[in-house]
């Protein structure tokens, strides 16, 4: 006789002879459907990879190390180094701006604001996360860019001796800085909501103990809340980073794409973004080969975000395990 208790995992119910036929079919169907995500991920890797391999064979490693886009040349030559580097540069700028803002916003929501204000802020942050990127791009193009140009002029005027803030052309539109600011605006709600979630889980007895020992807010954050939530916060930042790397449309509106690598002059016009490259070149491709090149670019974007997200999830999972 098959002993069945509530602890028996459902998967084992399908095995004994007594198992109900309906249950067995149900188990199989659900198990099959649960692997959709694996199938799709594998599909993306295989299909885009299959398009990327011939391109890599033809272009060689210079596809990843050179900066050119010559679809009409004989033979056509492509190199997306500027775009790959540009995506990273944008993400770093976005990170530098959004992480402090998100941390302070989350600290305010969790430890300072009265509960009612905190609830309103949570809703506002979620609403900010829900605004589509095309709307953020539209807003940035018409509302953010004019004052941002002024800020960059000021940066150049007062801090121009730092190589980072050099600008020789006098043109402050379409700079990586503006692109980074737009990405930061999109990252803040993601990082804030995860950070706030993590900080909320700080055991209240630790916070109370710290306070009764006479810790100031700063000491409590420094020695209790932040160490406790460190893993979750880093994971949240990495998830935001993954989102920033893959963001297409908002960056499309504010960044002037140039193929040369813009290494560090973040307020000089022109930068790169691999996701934006795909969308902006897709409408004007010359023949099938250029489409394949775009697919190959997409493949490397996919790999990049996959790695960032995998690291993020590992960090989050590891700290979850430590705590439980």
């Amino acid at each position, binding site marked *: 006789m098959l002993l069945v208790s509530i602890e028996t995992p459902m998967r084992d119910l399908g095995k004994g002879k007594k198992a109900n036929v309906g249950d067995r079919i149900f188990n199989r169907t659900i198990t099959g459907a649960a692997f959709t995500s694996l199938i799709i991920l594998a599909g993306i890797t295989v299909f885009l990879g299959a398009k990327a391999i011939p391109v890599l064979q033809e272009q060689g490693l210079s596809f990843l190390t050179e900066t050119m886009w010559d679809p009409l040349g004989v033979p056509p030559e492509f190199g997306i180094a500027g775009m790959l580097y540009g995506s990273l540069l944008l993400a770093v700028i976005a990170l530098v701006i959004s992480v402090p803002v998100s941390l302070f916003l989350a600290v305010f929501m969790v430890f300072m604001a009265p509960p009612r204000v905190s609830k309103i802020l949570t809703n506002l942050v979620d609403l900010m996360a829900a*605004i589509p990127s*095309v709307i953020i791009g539209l807003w940035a193009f018409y509302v953010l860019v004019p004052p941002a140009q002024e800020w960059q002029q000021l940066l150049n005027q007062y801090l121009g001796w730092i190589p980072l803030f050099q600008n020789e052309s006098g043109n402050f539109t379409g700079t990586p800085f503006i692109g980074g600011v737009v990405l930061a605006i999109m990252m*803040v709600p993601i990082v804030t909501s995860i950070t706030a979630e993590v900080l909320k889980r700080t055991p209240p007895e630790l916070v109370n103990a710290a306070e009764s020992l006479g810790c100031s807010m700063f000491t409590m954050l420094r020695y209790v809340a932040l160490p406790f939530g460190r893993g979750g916060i880093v994971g949240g930042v990495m998830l935001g980073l993954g989102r920033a*790397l893959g963001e297409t449309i908002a960056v499309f509106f504010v960044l002037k794409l140039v193929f040369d690598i813009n290494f560090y002059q973040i307020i000089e016009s022109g930068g790169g973004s691999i996701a934006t490259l795909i969308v902006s070149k*897709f409408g004007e491709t010359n023949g099938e080969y250029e489409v394949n090149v775009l697919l190959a670019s997409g493949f490397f974007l996919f790999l990049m975000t*996959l790695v960032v997200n995998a690291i993020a999830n590992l960090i989050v999972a590891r700290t979850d395990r430590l705590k439980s």
Partner: protein
Amino acid sequence: MTILMSESPPVLEKDLEPLRPWSKRPASFWLAAFLGSVVPLAILGALYLTTDLAVALLLIAFYLPLQLIGAGLAGYFAKGKHGIADSAIIVFAIGATALSAIILGSMLLTIIVRGIAAFRPSFIIQNSTYISPSTPLEYGGIGHAILGTFLIVGIATIISVPFGIATAVYVTEVRGRAVPYVRFFVQAMSGVPSVVAGLFVLTVFILTGVLNTSAMAAAIAYAILMLPTIARTAEEVLRLVPEELRTGALALGSTRARVVLNVVVPAARTGIITAILLGIARVVGETAPLLLTALKNDQTVLNPFTDPISALPTFIFDNVAQPYPDAVTRAWGAALALLIIVGVLFTITRFVSARKPRR
């Protein structure tokens, strides 16, 4: 506590100096708090009126340092030197909050104010056949784009909901051996950039000739983006279903499949609706996949298989960069329509999830 010991650097004795929070705050604190909040504002106002320096420069170079000094003094008089760091945190925290609120407010306000200029009944109902960027606002509209968005999102929902809920049921109800892997893959899938989802559909369905550039192709790309959101949210709500419901139904003699289909899933139905709505909200404004898989069309398209189709995001995208003010106003109008859809979805999810789950 053990975790804290292992993870944090040792708390130094000087950091734990008692603060005597019960002692009365001295008059100098109140004076510093008052002056610290009024003087920087006054200086900011005076500089703004008398000089023509940029507001950003005034805020960062004059207001912020003065505010920090003012708050630092107030903190020092209240709690001694620990108060300085505390007051700096408070200033930065309020600053970050204000900055985010200003950005969100500016976004919503601009879209509403500039979008309303385009809104009129004809703008919502009509399509854009025979409309060029220079056509006055009285003619043409976004009716075709609204229908396109509903069509694409509707099909994407029909495709992704069964898979998303099945994934969640596998994790919470079937509890098979592969649960950690399935969860990992769903997490990884949630990080797939939208443009990559579009490229995937392009490669598999459009370049091979299986599908035209159409609503169906776009819906598959949207479904890929929706699936992880639905699966993860549904997983969380299924976990909230009390274990007694499962054991009770089993004790009454129902099979495991019946327990899931007739008891657990119905008990979590409001949560599952929330999951679906969150999935829709995730994709409704996605533009990049549409540019690759649906292109654009000025006419109303109702057949999801045959023709290219416009949706609200692609309509905005097409009209933003036009050198004609009326086209740009149309883009703002479409952005307002999209924002209204997102706002309605957002409000419903808040409303649904705020209700207490029924026992």
